[in-house]
């Protein structure tokens, strides 16, 4: 049985585990890695109880490959990992994008590069999520900032992955994954299932036209589906040397996500009319949230989704405010994207508060930076 509606006191990773089952997870492949391991451990007992399949694979490449295979069998599939494992998965992320395979990857980010800080939080994988695999592709990524959001956004990750047939990420971090907090499981949770070829169903997934997101030909149903990472025509004929076929395919794969940015992007604004706006996400937003709640001069745009880039909310705050402060737990990754959008929107000044090492920026550190900027 999926978790019942009600209130719970859970760890972030446990909330993710329960959310995945609510969303319809039927196959999970995992490999132990701190700080995401609780998700695999939880699902090794929860999936057999909910008619699903859990397997521990030999490495992270095998995990992501196995969930791709399971997804083509028709099962909603997920894996969970952290930095080093995520790096190993990159080739398959591009493959899943190219073959339009719905999969969910939870990345509980830790300090890198390399083994780095296994038990400490970071936001160092933000650009790797979008640009880590070779070639031009788009993914969807959500960034939870609480136990509640670990639940809500995991469900959304499944829904959007199914709707757009795209690899979708939950970009959590060690702080959120290991945090314990209140979780309210609502009564009605919207679940989206993929648009299956040969199955007619009045479903909101149909609001995406077939030529943008083709119906999914589940294996074993007589569709004679051919799945390949080679450049292929809509009828799955491989055409690796035809420029037009490649332009049309890769163009559509990118368009289906960027054209539906407004449907996908999620965010929250505190003090939208403030002169100074902090832009942040995940646990890096804790300090900024405290400051924005107590100071009328400062507001907060907290991004709940990072990819596709939430251009509209960034533009909206940038048009109104005098300066932006981007707060990230890396040395500046999404900062450059945000700065580009903000400057285009007429914002004069975009600064960065970058903090690595594992501890989220404190309200004091945010205030200190704002004082340095001369805005409070």
């Amino acid at each position: 049985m999926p978790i019942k509606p009600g209130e719970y006191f859970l760890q972030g990773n446990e909330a993710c585990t329960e959310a995945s089952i609510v969303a319809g997870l039927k196959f999970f492949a995992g490999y132990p890695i701190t700080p995401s391991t609780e998700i695999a451990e939880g699902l090794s007992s929860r999936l057999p109880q909910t008619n699903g399949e859990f397997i521990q694979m030999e490495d992270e490449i095998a995990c992501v490959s196995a969930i791709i295979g399971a997804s083509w069998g028709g099962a909603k599939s997920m894996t969970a990992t952290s930095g080093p494992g995520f790096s190993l998965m990159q080739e398959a992320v591009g493959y899943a994008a190219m073959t339009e395979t719905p999969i969910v990857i939870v990345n509980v980010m830790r300090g890198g590069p390399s083994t780095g800080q296994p038990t400490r939080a970071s936001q160092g994988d933000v650009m790797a999520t979008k640009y880590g695999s070779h070639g031009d592709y788009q993914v969807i990524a959500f960034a939870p900032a609480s136990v509640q959001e670990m639940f809500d956004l995991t469900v959304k990750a499944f829904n959007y992955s199914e709707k757009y047939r795209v690899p979708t990420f939950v970009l959590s971090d060690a702080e959120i994954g290991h945090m314990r907090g209140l979780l309210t499981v609502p009564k009605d949770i919207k679940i989206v299932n993929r648009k299956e070829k040969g199955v007619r169903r009045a479903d909101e997934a149909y609001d995406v036209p077939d030529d943008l997101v083709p119906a999914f030909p589940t294996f074993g149903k007589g569709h004679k589906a051919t799945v390949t990472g080679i450049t292929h025509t809509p009828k799955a004929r491989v055409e690796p040397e035809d420029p037009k076929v490649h332009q049309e395919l890769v163009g559509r794969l990118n368009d289906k996500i960027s054209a539906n940015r407004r449907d996908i992007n999620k965010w929250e604004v505190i003090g939208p009319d403030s002169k100074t706006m902090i832009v942040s996400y995940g646990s890096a937003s804790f300090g900024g949230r405290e400051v924005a709640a107590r100071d009328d001069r400062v507001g907060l745009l907290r991004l709940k989704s990072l990819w596709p880039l939430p251009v509209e909310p960034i533009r909206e705050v940038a048009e109104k405010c005098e300066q932006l402060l981007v707060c990230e737990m890396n040395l500046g990754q999404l900062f450059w994207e945000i700065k580009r959008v903000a400057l285009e929107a007429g914002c004069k000044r975009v600064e960065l508060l970058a903090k690595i090492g594992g501890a989220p920026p404190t309200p004091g550190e945010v205030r200190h930076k704002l004082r340095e900027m001369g805005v409070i």
Partner: protein
Amino acid sequence: MELFDFYDQDRWPHVFCPGCGNGTVMNCFFRAFNEMGWKLDNTVFVSGIGCSSRIPLYINSDAIHTTHGRAIAVATGLKLSRPELDVVVFTGDGDLGAIGGNHFINGCRRNVDLDVICINNNIYGMTGGQASVTTPHDYISTTTPFGSKEYPFDLAELAVAAGANYVARWTTRHVHELTKSIKRSLEKKGFNFVEVVSQCPTNFGRRNKMADPSALLDWFKESSVRRDKVRAAAIDHVDLNLAGQITTGEFVCRDRECYHEKKGGGAHRDGH
């Protein structure tokens, strides 16, 4: 089923060179598949990257052509999510033995119900003839212009040691034996592995004084030694040395419980 129903003719012409062994293996597979009475609509073909991994694209059924080396991992996920489907993996020596080596040995160990057919042509054919993990010692390739200084992997022996349920090796010269072994592997549950030593006249034979495919087939015939014993590792057939001998035969035929049986059946999900 007729031979031409088995192939998806819309996808022709194929990419294989004249004299390639892949056609022989496909033909043997078709015969075994047909004799088994398996249905194409209930079978999924999985492959990685390489010449042999193109085979699933030409078969008239569901097929997934995955990333390099990952066919067995993808097949594992697929089989566990849909245990009622028959899953067949086509792979090659580079795809299986080099980049996919970890998935190969762990696949044998895990014993999920898969049939893996490895077409071992001793070379990376699609990229133009570089040395692979099965290129025989001292043979020439584009990356071993002075002869390969490494010793080749014995893939079948590796599968035996790692715990596969059924392991056989033949060459493209042994079409009857190969067909029987493929059929046997389809019949059996668990992880079944058939290695086929095959000719690549374009990229292996040409550089090793056997440009004529029939020269390679003659060489297979002359150097093959049958060893039909159900047995585990034996020192005298560890080395697959094409210069000396190719050990052929059924090396293991056992009935270890497959992954699914141990777990007492898996999830079934027809629809969602």
